[in-house]
């Protein structure tokens, strides 16, 4: 019942040949679990979501498998994938403001996917109203009659969660829920994702973010992505107490409460050796010559020669 991604590789066509955006990406999302996918901009976090949802632009090269209930979702064509979208995989996009149709009342938009799939109107209404109430969009009757521009940013975001949850999906893919959200609102987002799982305990949630506060608040596991590769995967507590990979350590050192130490910028897509070696404070001779594999440790995985 879990989403199991195996050896996913995604490449975009670039001016000098293929650019590998995700390499050897494997990830399992079990029911009821919240996994955070963190990394810098351009590390390939959103590309993962887009790959699974079939949103990648034409002309990309994708290999690997994404199993769900014995079906490889990546082998399906768009028409075959459609029944899985919404009902199994649901997406909460980055910008709720753009994700709602400006000319349709909210209630209609939220019911739409259900009704289009044959749920009777009364039943669809009931489900949407229940979710609206549960997510504190009250009174549901009034909110449902409003247009997106009449709602606040936070309300729109919650509405997007209603849209995603209305079809009772199994896997929720949340893209940067705290991007451009101020500190006070972050608590709301955290509460929102917790509520989502309280409403549906079997729901697996994947949160793509570079907000470590959010990670600490909601995630069970953390997967760190660097330049298209997983460099560390461990439980949230391990990650915050003793990060293994130098990039993960640098990420934590950059948190305000730990001294805001910025990582020097450098070309990240190095061809030879470890991708992180030009920025790594603990770089060794070996790192320049040889790319490390993902090394299994007792409770985590790390891609670094330090832990060989």
């Amino acid at each position, binding site marked *: 019942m879990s989403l199991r991604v195996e050896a996913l590789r995604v490449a975009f066509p670039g001016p000098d040949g293929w650019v590998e955006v995700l390499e050897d990406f494997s990830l399992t999302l079990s029911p009821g679990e919240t996994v955070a996918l963190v990394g810098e901009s351009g590390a390939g976090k959103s590309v993962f979501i887009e790959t699974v*949802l079939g*949103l990648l632009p*034409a002309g990309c090269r994708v290999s690997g498998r994404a199993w769900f209930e014995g079906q490889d979702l990546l082998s399906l064509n768009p*028409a075959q994938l*459609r*029944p*899985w*979208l*919404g*009902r199994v*995989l*649901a*997406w909460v*996009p980055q*910008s709720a*403001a*753009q*994700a*709602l*149709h*400006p*000319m*349709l009342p909210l209630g209609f*938009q939220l019911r*739409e*996917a259900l009704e*289009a*799939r044959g749920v009777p109107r009364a039943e669809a209404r009931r489900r949407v109203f229940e979710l609206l109430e549960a997510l504190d969009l009250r009174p549901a009757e009034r909110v449902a009659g409003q247009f997106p521009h009449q709602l606040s940013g936070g309300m729109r975001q919650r509405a*997007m969660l209603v*849209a*995603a949850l209305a*079809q009772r999906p199994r896997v929720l893919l949340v893209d940067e829920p705290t991007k451009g959200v101020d500190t006070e609102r972050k608590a709301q987002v955290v509460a929102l994702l917790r509520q989502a799982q309280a409403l549906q305990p079997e729901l697996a949630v994947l949160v793509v973010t570079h907000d470590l506060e959010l990670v600490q608040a909601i995630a069970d596991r953390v997967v760190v992505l660097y330049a298209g590769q997983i460099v560390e995967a461990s439980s949230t507590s391990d990650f915050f107490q003793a990060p293994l990979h130098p990039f993960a350590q640098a990420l934590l050192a950059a948190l305000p409460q730990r001294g805001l130490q910025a990582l020097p910028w450098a070309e990240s897509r190095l061809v030879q050796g470890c991708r992180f070696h030009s920025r790594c404070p603990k770089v060794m001779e070996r790192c320049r010559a040889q790319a490390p594999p993902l090394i299994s440790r007792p409770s985590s995985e790390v891609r670094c020669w330090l832990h060989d």
Partner: protein
Amino acid sequence: MSKAAVLCALVPLLLLGLGLVLPKAEAVHPPFSPPGAGLLLGADDIGQDVLRVLAHGTVTTLGVGFAAGVLATLIGVLVGGSAGYWPRLEAPLTRLTDLVLAFPRLPLLILLALYLKPNPLNAVVILALFGWPSTARTLRPAVAGLREAGYAQVARTLGASGLYVLFRHVLPQITPLLMVNLLLEIRFALVAQTGLAFLGLTDPSQPSWGLMLFQAFQQNQTFTTSYWLWTVLPPAVALTLTVLALSLPLLGDERRLDPRLRREP
């Protein structure tokens, strides 16, 4: 701007109403009689009341024009919408649009009008077949831009098909553009229909503004006497006012929406 449009529209609307209630014109008056009491617009060469002919002509002209305009817009929406939404259809449909646009419209219209039966239904179809490319051309980029809009993407990830997203989410968003195109299509169809009738290519028993002009121009004394005042002028004025009524709102919108045309307060 829109007040002027309403004023202009009053005349064709009044004529349309008259055309729907007045009985058909009959040749009972002395031919060529000038306007006077009981004969507001005089009589034509065979003694028909010009006002009645004009009113019945309005029904034909506006009917054909509006029907053809609506049909052309529909075809344009289908072709332009598909070309904008599905990248695979973009090249073939754009080529098709360019092809139809490249045909010299009037000669081809004349040719078709000569070969097909000159009834109003055929006129509607022919005019629509030549009118749709402009709508398709304006819609394609608008749809292509909205195809990647956030809500369209979300709808697709919630399991909506392409057709569903196109018709339920993308097209409603460009209703203003559709309305403008509808007016333009109707305007084109009206003028083209009048042109065909003026060339004598429509059914001579079906009165229309163009046919009235055609028949008036057949008379030798039309422009040597004052006969043109009540046979040429009324349909010409009616056509002009109708086209103005359709164009003025567009002009007003353009003034309102285009910052370069906006007058400083």
